[in-house]
């Protein structure tokens, strides 16, 4: 592949130059991140914490596939456990070549064992993928068809960190959400497929320690993960056109509802308490406000910006327009701070009076460059 660089022009030649010194090195540190995003390292570990290779490829919103000339080894459409196994296969593979397709900036990385990693741009961005170089520069593919070389700042690799435990969740450069109620997916021993689209009368009988892959009428897919006691603890769905159905309408106690990213952005995560009340919201406040349409919840504009696409709508149904307006103002203000280069941390908690089921309001705690502030929005 190195010889072909003589004919390369544009982004393909740029990437080849970015990887000068990396060809011939084995991959290490491959790690699946949120959903199908992942990273892999090449070269000596740098003195960062955690250590990073001299080169680091970080795949964000691009679809991807690992294949040989004869077989697909796996790709971003697999379930998480299988995706993880495919990403782990990258460790030890020796990089021998690279290519970039125009206009999409989809990239291919070639390895010495004749496997290839193909990336496929499928969103507007902000990043399809990025490559950190040893000289402190970062090659950035996206948004859209933009191709740039930027300074490596500490935030560059922070777009979406893992969703484990009480770790802060970064959803964009300089923007961090704090969500202590966030619970990781329970470890499951098997999976069960329930197709309510083809068999609308089927009864869902939950099994312990199982991933229940439910296809709702209309084709919307929802994955419900149960713990060892058979209790649903994690519900994962794509931002789809809202389909009223008990699986999504009925809030589950002590669970995390995660809606996959769209356009490369975190969409929304909702957490419930043991009374099945919404207690935490994690979303991207930079999303356009007020773009909701018929059938969409007023907060849909704030919590992702797609009309009617916040699927667990029942969880948001008890929050009224006053909260939406307040959070809208705050979101716009925080978005400005982020765009000025300031560092923003946010936590949104829904609070109640006693054991009441209807939220009394939402408390927002945030800090901008370390300056902390808070405001409560009454649910009128």
């Amino acid at each position, binding site marked *: 592949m190195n010889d072909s660089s003589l004919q390369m022009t544009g982004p393909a030649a740029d990437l080849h130059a970015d990887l000068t010194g990396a060809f011939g090195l084995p991959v290490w540190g491959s790690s699946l991140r949120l959903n199908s995003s992942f990273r892999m390292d090449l070269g000596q570990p740098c003195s960062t914490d955690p250590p990073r290779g001299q080169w680091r490829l970080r795949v964000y*919103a691009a*679809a*991807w*596939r690992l*294949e*040989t*000339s*004869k*077989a*697909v080894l*796996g*790709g*971003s*459409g*697999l*379930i998480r456990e*299988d995706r993880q196994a495919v990403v782990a296969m990258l460790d030890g593979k020796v990089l021998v070549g690279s290519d970039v397709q*125009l*206009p*999409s900036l*989809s990239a291919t990385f070639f390895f010495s064992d004749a496997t290839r990693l*193909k990336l*496929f*741009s*499928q*969103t*507007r961005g902000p990043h399809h993928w990025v490559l950190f170089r040893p000289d402190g520069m970062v090659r950035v593919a996206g948004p*859209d*068809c933009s191709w740039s070389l930027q300074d490596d700042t500490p935030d560059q690799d922070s777009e979406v960190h893992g969703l484990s435990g009480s770790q802060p969740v970064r959803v964009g450069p300089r923007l961090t959400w704090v969500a202590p109620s966030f619970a990781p997916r329970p470890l499951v021993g098997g*999976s069960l*497929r329930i197709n309510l689209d083809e068999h609308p009368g089927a009864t869902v009988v939950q099994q312990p320690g199982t991933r229940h*892959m439910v296809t709702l009428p*209309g*084709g*919307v897919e929802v994955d419900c993960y149960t713990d060892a006691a058979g209790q649903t603890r994690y519900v994962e769905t*794509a931002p*789809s*056109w809202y389909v009223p159905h008990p699986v999504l309408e009925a809030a589950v106690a002590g669970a995390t509802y995660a809606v996959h990213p*769209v*356009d*490369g952005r975190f969409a929304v995560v909702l957490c419930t308490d043991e009374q099945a009340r919404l207690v935490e919201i994690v979303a991207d406040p930079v999303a356009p406000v007020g773009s909701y349409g018929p059938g969409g919840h007023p907060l849909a504009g704030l919590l992702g*910006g*797609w*009309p009617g*696409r916040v699927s667990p709508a029942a969880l948001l149904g008890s929050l009224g327009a006053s909260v939406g307006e307040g959070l809208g103002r705050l979101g716009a203000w925080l978005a400005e701070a982020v765009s000025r280069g300031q560092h923003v941390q946010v936590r949104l908690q829904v609070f109640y009076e006693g054991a009441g089921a209807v939220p009394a309001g939402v408390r927002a705690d945030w800090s901008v460059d370390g300056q902390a502030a808070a405001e409560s929005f009454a649910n009128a």
Partner: protein
Amino acid sequence: MSNDRPDRAIDPTADLRADLTGAIGLQAWGAGLGVGASFALNLGQPNLSRPRWGQWRLRVSRTAWRIETPTSVLTASEYSHGEIDAAVATLDGKVLVDADAELPSLSAVFSFADGTQVKTFSVDADGDHWRLFRPDGLVRIAGPDGFWVLRSSDSPSTDRRRR
């Protein structure tokens, strides 16, 4: 069931071009969004029994995909609903000039006379990546694990899902 087994020595591009014999040079029509980010387009005369279907109907479903020109991306599978809807509709009137499908993924490219291309990118997800219904009642199906079959479109679907 033997028809549902993928052939071992396949040439998907040759098969796909054969499937589209008679469709090359025709205009796409009725391009529109389905459930989620799936979409379909038609070629040829309306089907007598299904007037909203053409003699050929391409349905792209459980795969990543992108519609692009040589210089810009018009839309892709994870764009917003409104953007996908608008861009898919622009396929109407475009003249199909070629198609190919690559191994081992069975990802396909459908090329139109004005340089626009529909590209699918199989990500090894469950279910059929794309289907091409033909005028003779057969349907070409590309799915995971090299699943590549031509069978009657009236046949019940088989569950090849493995996750």
